[in-house]
């Protein structure tokens, strides 16, 4: 039996190696996608340019401006002279944020008088505007703390926030786990469903059926090579994530890889299941694209935060979309460095999904034509 299995895997590997399209899907797409998601789809900002409308023009206001620049995240575009100039920077698209420093800044600042610094951001990109305003506010607070160390006001309540595990809010920390989940699912499911429907289309399934091969062996033989290659994909994306996007890997690597393997097998079972329903490669391709890609992208919390979805979609996302759990596991193990106990529920859910899908696929595998 093992000999037959080996021959099947060998045959499948020949198919893969000799088909450019499969190779491109297998290795080209993941790399391109990670790089695209990593670089292009990013909510963090680098070198945001700001204008300053400085009514005070005193020593302290200049110190504040320097403090903000020295953070490395802002570059000073222009020092404005009148309120009328504020909008022009936004309109030209040069400026992400304008800070307005009031008159008598120095004296009010040291004299403990109430004072207001105005931050104006471009709200047409709300995420970015929020991040900028938050970040600037923190810089101003830290400036205030530095300068007023000696004369600390005991009655002042300051809120200090810390973004744990990702203090700089680097978006790669979110996107790399999401991308791994996304790519593995699409690649594995699509390729297996294509590979099986191809046999149907070419008529070779007819011959395989009229042979002593049990259905399970046909399925395993077809899927094993893809499982291995998808697993290599997972490692590839992890390596890019870790070394190119500097996503930390705090938890156990072995746990991470085992989870990846489980997820790959789940994705492959999905692929097999699709192929039991689809008659042609085109059908299989469309089903895996529409049925898997969209929910994975939209409902897994990968791009849109889970909490901001309507309840119905949250439920769907958390019940049906396996990527939701896998992303949870990845983030937990990679960023928070937790161990097996903390992700055991997610792992159990993925395992359950795999078993159900495999059983369904096996049950639906047709031992005859039609």
């Amino acid at each position, binding site marked *: 039996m093992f*000999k*037959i299995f080996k*021959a*099947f895997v*060998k*045959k499948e590997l*020949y*198919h893969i190696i*000799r*088909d450019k399209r499969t190779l491109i899907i297998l290795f080209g797409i993941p790399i391109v996608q990670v790089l695209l998601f990593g670089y292009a789809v990013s909510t963090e900002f680098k070198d945001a340019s700001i204008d300053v409308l400085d009514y005070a023009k005193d020593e302290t206001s200049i110190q504040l401006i320097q403090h903000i620049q020295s953070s490395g995240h802002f570059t000073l575009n222009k020092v404005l002279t009148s309120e009328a100039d504020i909008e022009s920077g936004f309109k030209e698209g040069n400026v992400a944020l304008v800070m307005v420093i009031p008159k008598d800044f120095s004296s009010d600042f040291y004299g403990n008088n109430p004072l207001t610094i105005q931050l104006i951001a471009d709200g047409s990109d709300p995420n970015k505007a929020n991040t900028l305003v938050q970040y600037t506010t923190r810089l101003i607070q830290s400036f205030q703390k530095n300068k007023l160390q000696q004369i600390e006001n005991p009655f002042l309540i300051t809120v200090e926030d810390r973004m744990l595990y990702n203090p700089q809010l680097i978006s790669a920390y979110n996107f790399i786990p999401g991308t791994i989940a996304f790519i593995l699912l699409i690649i594995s499911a699509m390729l297996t469903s294509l590979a099986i429907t191809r046999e149907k289309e*070419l*008529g*070779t399934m*007819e*011959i*395989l*059926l*009229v*042979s*002593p*091969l049990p259905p399970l062996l046909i399925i395993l033989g077809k899927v094993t090579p893809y499982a291995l290659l998808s697993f290599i994909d997972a490692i590839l994306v992890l390596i890019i994530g870790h070394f190119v996007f500097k996503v930390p890997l705090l938890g156990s690597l072995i746990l991470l890889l085992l989870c990846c393997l489980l997820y790959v097998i789940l994705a492959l079972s999905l692929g097999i299941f699709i192929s039991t329903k689809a008659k042609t490669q085109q059908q299989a391709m469309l089903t895996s694209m529409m049925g898997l890609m969209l929910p994975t992208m939209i409902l897994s919390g990968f791009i849109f935060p889970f909490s901001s979805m309507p309840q119905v979609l949250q439920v769907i996302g958390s019940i049906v979309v396996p990527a939701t759990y896998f992303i949870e596991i990845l983030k937990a193990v990679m960023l928070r460095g937790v161990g097996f106990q903390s992700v055991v529920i997610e792992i159990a859910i993925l395992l359950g999904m795999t078993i159900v899908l495999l059983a369904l696929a096996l049950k639906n595998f047709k*031992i*005859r*034509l*039609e």
Partner: protein
Amino acid sequence: MDAITVEHITKKYGDVLALNDVSFTVGKGELFGLIGPDGAGKSTLFRILTTLLLADKGKGTVAGHPIVNEYKEIRKKVGYMPGRFSLYQDLSIEENLSFFATIFGTTVEDNYDLIKDIYVQIEPFKKRLAGKLSGGMKQKLALCCALIHKPEVLFLDEPTTGVDAVSRVEFWDMLKKLKTKGIAILVSTPYMDEATLCDRIALIQNGEILKIDSPQQMISNFEKPLFSINSTETYRLLNYLRVQNFTESVLPFGENLHLITNEPYEASQIEYHLKIAGFSDNTAKTIQPTVEDIFLDISQPVN
């Protein structure tokens, strides 16, 4: 024990009757031909017998096993060559053959005897991908793959369709040799000229078997007077003969017309009659029917 038995098999696709009450048997070591045009139901019957489809009615056995309940046993014992070339086009001859040998739990070496005569012809190209082979070579490879596990029953669905004339002759020679090894062969073909190469044939049209017999017997049992007429004005002659009282049927066969009359005549009588009717240059002779003549005679008119 017969290698194949088919009893009253009926199969419908929606409203279309693909097979209607088909029955026949094929003995051990017999070369049995299913002769009929495209769409006659030949492939459907093959798929039912190779356990790929379920019949709506009727039953059958292959190699002694009932086709529905013991499909697993049948799948171990038959070789099947589908109508469409169904090997892996991106694998070489060698790779295809050894893959199919392995999945049937054997090796190419073990059963090399059986395929040797065929395989030596394609062996020089064994590194070539199956998709790049000519039609004849593809069929030889497919036959090798169907034979490699020493099947008891061989199903060949239109193995010579799309194959050149020389390769077709070779192919049938191979089948004759295989027969001597005790393998029962069910073969289908739309080519009537191949029918005489079978031990027995079934003429099939529109899902119904019209006649089953050995081709020789069928030919000698044909009692109607049949003439082959050659003329310089074939088309005009055809139209003329169609409306004559003595004509039962007239059909073009290559350059000649085959005429069946409803009463016995001498060939010279026909020639004389045609000369008088203005076809000066014609020759008529009494001929033995071919399987095609018989088929056309008993098949329902196509209009």
